[in-house]
C-alpha cells in the first residue's frame, strides 16, 4: 500500500479506522482536534459506519467511549491534556471497571503551552490510573501503536492511554498503512457486574488491576517499542522517551551514538532495561518531553547513587518542550553561535479576526464598565480570551473551561458588584451550565455574557453543542425571562447594546446577555461553499 502523508493526529485517526474502530468521541482542543476531525471527514469511516462525533465535553466523550467498550466494540476518545482533567473522573474509574471492547484514551499534551494554559504531563495520569501508556516517537509508530493499543486493551481488559505532544500531533510524515480489520460484534461483558463500581465489586476489580501490573510491566519489557541499543562509551547511558528519541538521533546524523540508549515508548517504564543501563553506566541522562517522570523514578526519594542528568539537575531546562539544540547541549555538543533576531522585529501575538463579533461585544462591555473601574471581568477559554490583549484589555481571568461564571459568582458573593462573566457558546455547554445553576440557586448578582458565535471557533469551527439552545437552557435553569437579553454585536448597534449592558450590570440578580453573531471565519467558509455550489449548479 502507498504511503500517506499524515499529521501525527491523522495517523492515529487513520489507524483507528483501519484497526476496527466503532466509535470516536471528543471535544475539540489543540493539539488533539485533528484526530476526530479526520475520522468525521473520512468517507471510509462513514462507509464503515463508524460513529464519529463532537460531544459537549471531554467527560461525556470518555463516558460514551467507555459505553461503547462495555458493548464490546472498539472505542477511542481524544482530548488535549487539560481535557483529561475534565474527563479525569471517568478516566481513573475506567481503569477499575476495565474494558470489554478495546478502548484508547488519546491525550495530546502541549509542552511550551503553544495553545494552552499549562503544560501538564499526562503520563502522570496514566501512571495514577495504573494503566499501560503508549508514547509514540513518530507518525509511523503512532499509526502502528493504535492497532497494538486496541489489542493490549482487549487482551488485559483495560483502557490504554496514548500520549502524544504538539510536535508529533501537528507534524506530517509518510505513514505506511496496514490492512484493515473488521470491527467487533456487539458483545456484552461476560461478567455483567464488571462495570458496577459498588465498593464490594470495586475492591475486587481494583485487585484485578493491581494483579495486572506485573503483566503490564512484562509487556513493556517485551514491547518492540521499547529498545535497548548497546554502546561502547559507558561514561553515560541515555534514556530517551517518545519524541525525545528523535532529538537524540538528530544530534548524530550518522546515528553513531557512542552511549548505550534505552528508548521508552511504552509504560510502565521497562524496569529491567533501565536497571541494566544504570548498572553498566557511570551516569544517566534522561530525555523526556514533559515533566521528569522517568527521571524521578530513577532518582528516588533520597537521590543516592549515580549521577542522573535531566530536568531536575538543570542539564535540561525544567520547563518547555525539547528541541535538537537543548538535547545537543545536554549531550555535551557545542551549539554554534547563532544569528540573532534583529532588534526591529516586533512580537506579533494572535489577535481577534477583523470583523469578529467579540470585538463589538468587548467594546460595549468596556464602555459600560468604565464608571465602575477595571478588574471585574471573569473570562473563559476560547477566541475571546484574546480580549486580554491590547487594544481591548477587557478581561481579568482565564483559568479553566467554565470558570468564568463560577468565579464571577464567588467574587459577587464576596461583594464585587458588578461582577461579570464572559463565556463562549460552546464553552457554556461544555462546563458553564452547572455554574449558572449555582448562581441562580443562590441569587448571586452576576452578569453573564454568553458570546454566541454559533461555533467552536478557536479550534477551527467545529459545531457547537449550544447551537439554538442557549435561551432555553438559561430559562430552564431559572434565569428570569426579562434578564435574558439578546443583542447583535455590530458597531452600528453600539449605543443600543450599551444601554442593554448598562441596565443588566445594575440588576441585582443573575442576568444573561447573549451577543449573537456568527463567527466571521465560519461565515466566510459558508459563503465560499455556497458560491462554489452555485457555480457548480450553473455549470451543469
Amino acid at each position, binding site marked *: 500500500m502507498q*504511503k500517506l*502523508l499524515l*499529521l501525527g493526529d491523522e495517523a492515529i485517526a487513520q489507524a483507528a479506522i483501519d484497526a476496527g474502530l466503532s466509535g470516536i468521541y471528543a471535544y475539540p482542543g*489543540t*493539539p488533539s*482536534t*485533528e484526530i476526530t476531525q479526520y475520522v468525521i471527514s473520512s468517507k471510509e469511516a462513514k462507509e464503515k459506519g463508524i460513529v464519529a462525533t463532537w460531544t459537549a465535553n471531554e467527560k461525556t466523550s470518555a463516558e460514551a467511549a467507555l459505553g461503547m467498550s462495555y458493548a464490546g466494540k472498539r472505542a477511542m476518545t481524544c482530548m488535549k491534556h487539560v481535557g483529561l482533567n475534565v474527563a479525569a473522573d471517568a478516566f481513573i474509574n475506567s481503569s477499575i471497571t476495565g474494558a470489554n471492547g478495546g478502548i484508547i484514551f488519546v491525550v495530546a499534551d502541549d509542552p511550551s503551552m*503553544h*495553545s494552552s494554559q499549562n503544560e501538564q504531563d499526562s503520563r502522570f495520569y496514566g501512571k495514577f490510573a495504573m494503566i499501560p501508556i503508549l508514547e509514540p516517537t513518530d507518525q509511523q509508530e503512532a499509526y502502528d501503536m493504535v492497532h497494538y493499543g486496541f489489542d493490549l486493551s482487549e487482551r488485559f481488559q483495560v483502557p490504554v492511554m496514548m500520549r502524544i505532544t504538539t*510536535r*508529533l500531533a*501537528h*507534524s*506530517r*510524515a*509518510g505513514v505506511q498503512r496496514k490492512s484493515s480489520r473488521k470491527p467487533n460484534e456487539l458483545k456484552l461483558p461476560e461478567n455483567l457486574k464488571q462495570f458496577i463500581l459498588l465498593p464490594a465489586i470495586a475492591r475486587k476489580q481494583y485487585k484485578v488491576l493491581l494483579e495486572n501490573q506485573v503483566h503490564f510491566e512484562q509487556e513493556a519489557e517485551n514491547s518492540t517499542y521499547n529498545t535497548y541499543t548497546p554502546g561502547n562509551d559507558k561514561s553515560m547511558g541515555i534514556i530517551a522517551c517518545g*519524541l525525545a528519541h*528523535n*532529538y*537524540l*538521533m*538528530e544530534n548524530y546524523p550518522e546515528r553513531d551514538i557512542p552511549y548505550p540508549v534505552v528508548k521508552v515508548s511504552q509504560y510502565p517504564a521497562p524496569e529491567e532495561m533501565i536497571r541494566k543501563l544504570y548498572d553498566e553506566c557511570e551516569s544517566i541522562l534522561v530525555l523526556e518531553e514533559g515533566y521528569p517522570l522517568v527521571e524521578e523514578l530513577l532518582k528516588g526519594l533520597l537521590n543516592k547513587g549515580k549521577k542522573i542528568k535531566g530536568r531536575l539537575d538543570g542539564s535540561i531546562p525544567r520547563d518547555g518542550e525539547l*528541541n*535538537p*539544540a537543548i538535547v*545537543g547541549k545536554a549531550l555535551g555538543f557545542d*551549539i*554554534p553561535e*547563532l*544569528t*540573532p*533576531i*534583529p532588534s*526591529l*522585529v*516586533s*512580537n*506579533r*501575538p*494572535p*489577535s*481577534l*479576526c477583523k470583523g469578529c463579533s467579540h470585538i463589538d461585544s468587548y467594546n460595549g462591555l468596556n464602555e459600560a464598565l468604565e464608571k465602575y473601574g477595571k478588574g471585574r471581568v471573569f473570562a473563559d477559554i476560547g*477566541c475571546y480570551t*484574546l480580549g486580554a490583549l*491590547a487594544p481591548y484589555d477587557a478581561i481579568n481571568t482565564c483559568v479553566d473551561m467554565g470558570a468564568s461564571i463560577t468565579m464571577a459568582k464567588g467574587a459577587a458573593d464576596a461583594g464585587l458588584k458588578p461582577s461579570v462573566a464572559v463565556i463562549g457558546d460552546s464553552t457554556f455547554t461544555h462546563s458553564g451550565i452547572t455554574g449558572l445553576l449555582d448562581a441562580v440557586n443562590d441569587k448571586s448578582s452576576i452578569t453573564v455574557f454568553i458570546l454566541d458565535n454559533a461555533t467552536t471557533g*478557536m*479550534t*477551527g469551527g467545529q459545531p457547537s453543542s449550544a447551537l439554538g439552545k442557549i435561551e432555553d437552557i438559561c430559562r430552564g435553569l431559572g434565569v428570569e425571562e426579562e434578564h435574558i437579553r439578546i443583542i447583535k454585536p455590530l458597531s452600528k448597534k453600539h449605543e443600543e447594546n450599551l444601554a442593554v449592558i448598562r441596565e443588566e450590570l445594575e440588576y441585582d440578580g443573575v442576568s444573561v446577555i447573549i451577543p449573537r453573531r456568527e463567527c466571521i471565519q465560519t461565515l466566510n467558509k459558508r459563503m465560499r461553499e455556497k458560491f462554489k455550489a452555485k457555480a457548480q449548479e450553473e455549470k451543469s
Partner: protein
Amino acid sequence: MKKDIILAGVGGQGILSIAAIIGHAAVETGLYLKQAEVHGMSQRGGDVQSNLRLSDKPIASDLIPHGKADMILSVEPMESLRYLPFLSPEGWVVTNTKPYINIPDYPNEEDLMAEIGKLPHHVALDAESIAAELGTIKAANIVMLGAASPFLDLEYEKIKNAIVFFFGRKGQDLVDLNLKALEAGREFAQKNMN
C-alpha cells in the same frame, strides 16, 4: 540530499499551501519528508511558521535544529527575520516585500528592507505586484514558491506537476495562471540573487 526549509508568515497567509506543494513534489521525487505546522491560537493573525524537512535519508527530528536551515521562505518581510537563529551561514532567505501590518509597533519599512538587504544570501520580491500583473494577487504565494524553486534541489518539472495536482480540479485556467506565477517568481530569483 537534505533541505531544511522554514516557511514563515502570519496566520491566515496560507504558508501551509506552499508547504503542501513542495511536499507533494518531494514525495513524488521519492524523498523523506517531515513537516511541522502550527495549529491553534497562533493561527489567529499571529506569527506562524512551518518546519519543512526533505532528505534522501530518514529524518529524525520534526524540528529543524538551530543554525541548520537551508532556507527561510517568508511571505512577509518582518517574519523573514524572526527565524534567523535557525538559518545556516550558507542559507538563503527568500522573502516577499509586502508588509502585513496588524500590530501597532510594526517597524519602519525602509529600516526593514535595509535589514533584509544586509543578509548575505537573499532574494526579496514584491510577490503581490508580480501576481497582480498576471491577473490575480491570489497567486502571490505561488510567485514566492517560484522564487524559492532554484534553491530547493527539486526538479522544476516535479514542482510544476505538483501545481497541476493541486489546482487541477479548479480548472485549466487556474493551473495555467499558477504555472505562470511559478515561472515569474523563478525568473525573478534567477536574475536577482543577492
